[in-house]
């Protein structure tokens, strides 16, 4: 990928990772990109680097614009190694004494990733750095999504370098929102659901803050995926919507199964929900990826979880999904549990415990059926589905 001028004297010198398919447990069927930005003013600044494996490309991209040794400042908006991984090579190339700007937590966290004694400059919230015609303002955004995270704002160009926020794991030739249109939104939604959902309250506060500060934003440059230049408002509004966690009239029935019995129950439950006029789909965990399931959970009003009982425990993939979902702290959900069992049948109880811990509104004590559901058993599942459908219609217009 060649460098890309995104505004006068501002370049994306990042790289495309076409082949990555698993981003620490998040499926990236269409790869991703690591964006890094070069601002060529009286002083030259580099905002973020790329994953270590791509450091050659980064330096080549920079060299197509300026001699890397001419970089005056490096800014680390975020410590995670997909953005900091090339710091050792970059700092070694440009001069290890060049200032490395980061937040206070960035200083702590970078030093726990890298042993080199770089010339760290930790900045306070709203601190500025003048490059000549432009002034950079650093905005602390702790826990969006790491303690070290910050944004860099260029007021003269009205550009917000937003680190991981507003990003998408998407690899393509498109660089900007206007080149790809609406088809980027599912990627942006998946990214939000799997990375930022638990920080929804912080995002709402951040959006208020940005309005309060009167920051004019013409372009948002995240560290992954396309850049929002035509309509940054679109992704901001999407974040406001997703962070408010207002559910749609939709249910997901997530399950695993050993001999199709729990599956049969799942499908009957879905049928009942659908008969109430609510969207529902059964999601077989082993046929899906947890990150895809989580994207469906984002705007669902109900998450119904089914598991067989194996050796008195939940089927392991169900535990995987429940652990993953718990960490992302979804709010405003209706929940219920179900499962087929052989003899001890702990699964419904165990699922209910997890759903309670997640503060779901558990509207039914759950359904468990021994071995293969007969017609009576299926009818009970259908009834549960109807109950869920009705409950959803009550809380979602």
């Amino acid at each position, binding site marked *: 990928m060649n460098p890309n001028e995104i505004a006068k004297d501002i370049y994306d010198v990042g790289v495309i990772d076409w082949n990555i398919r698993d981003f620490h447990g998040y499926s990236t069927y269409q790869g991703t990109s690591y964006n890094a930005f070069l601002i060529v003013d009286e002083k030259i600044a580099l905002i973020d680097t790329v994953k270590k494996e791509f450091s050659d490309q980064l330096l080549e991209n920079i060299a197509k614009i300026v001699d890397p040794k001419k970089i005056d400042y490096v800014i680390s908006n975020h410590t995670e190694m997909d953005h900091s991984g090339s710091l050792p090579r970059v700092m070694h190339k440009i001069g290890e004494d060049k200032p490395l700007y980061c937040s206070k937590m960035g200083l702590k966290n970078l030093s726990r990733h890298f042993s080199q004694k770089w010339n760290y400059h930790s900045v306070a919230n709203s601190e500025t750095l003048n490059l000549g015609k432009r002034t950079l303002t650093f905005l602390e955004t702790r*826990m969006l999504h790491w303690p070290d995270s910050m944004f860099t704002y260029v007021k003269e160009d009205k550009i917000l370098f937003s680190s991981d926020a507003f990003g998408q794991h998407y690899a393509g030739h498109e660089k900007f929102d206007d080149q790809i249109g609406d088809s980027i939104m599912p990627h942006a939604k998946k990214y939000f659901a799997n990375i930022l959902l638990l920080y929804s309250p*912080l995002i709402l506060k951040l959006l208020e803050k940005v309005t309060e500060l009167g920051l004019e934003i013409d372009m948002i440059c995240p560290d992954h995926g396309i850049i929002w230049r035509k309509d940054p408002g679109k992704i901001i509004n999407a974040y406001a919507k997703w962070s408010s966690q207002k559910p749609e009239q939709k249910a997901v029935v997530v399950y695993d199964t050993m001999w199709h019995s729990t599956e049969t129950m799942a499908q009957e439950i879905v049928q009942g929900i659908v008969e109430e006029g609510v969207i529902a789909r059964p999601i077989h965990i082993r046929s899906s990826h947890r990150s895809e399931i989580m994207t469906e959970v984002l705007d669902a009003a109900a998450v119904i979880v089914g598991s067989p009982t194996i050796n008195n425990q939940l089927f392991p993939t169900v535990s995987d999904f429940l652990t993953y979902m718990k960490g992302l702290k979804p709010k405003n959900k209706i929940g219920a549990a179900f499962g087929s069992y052989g003899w001890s049948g702990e699964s419904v109880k165990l699922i209910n415990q997890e759903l309670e811990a997640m503060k779901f509104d558990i509207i039914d004590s759950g359904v468990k059926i021994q071995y293969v559901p007969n017609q009576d058993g299926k009818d009970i599942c259908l009834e549960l589905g109807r109950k869920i459908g009705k409950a959803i219609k009550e809380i979602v217009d």
Partner: protein
Amino acid sequence: MEKYVCSMCGYIYDPQQGDPESGIAPGTRFEELPDDWKCPGCGAPKEQFKKMRTQ
């Protein structure tokens, strides 16, 4: 009553507010928080909190 700040994420525990979502009533001093209490901002354990220096 003194405020404490999480050294991981900057969350400020204000005893006057408490932490109602975790069942901690307003007026609860930091020292009175249970040992297994976690930072509402980032989940870090109680040990990561430091007393805020008064201005």
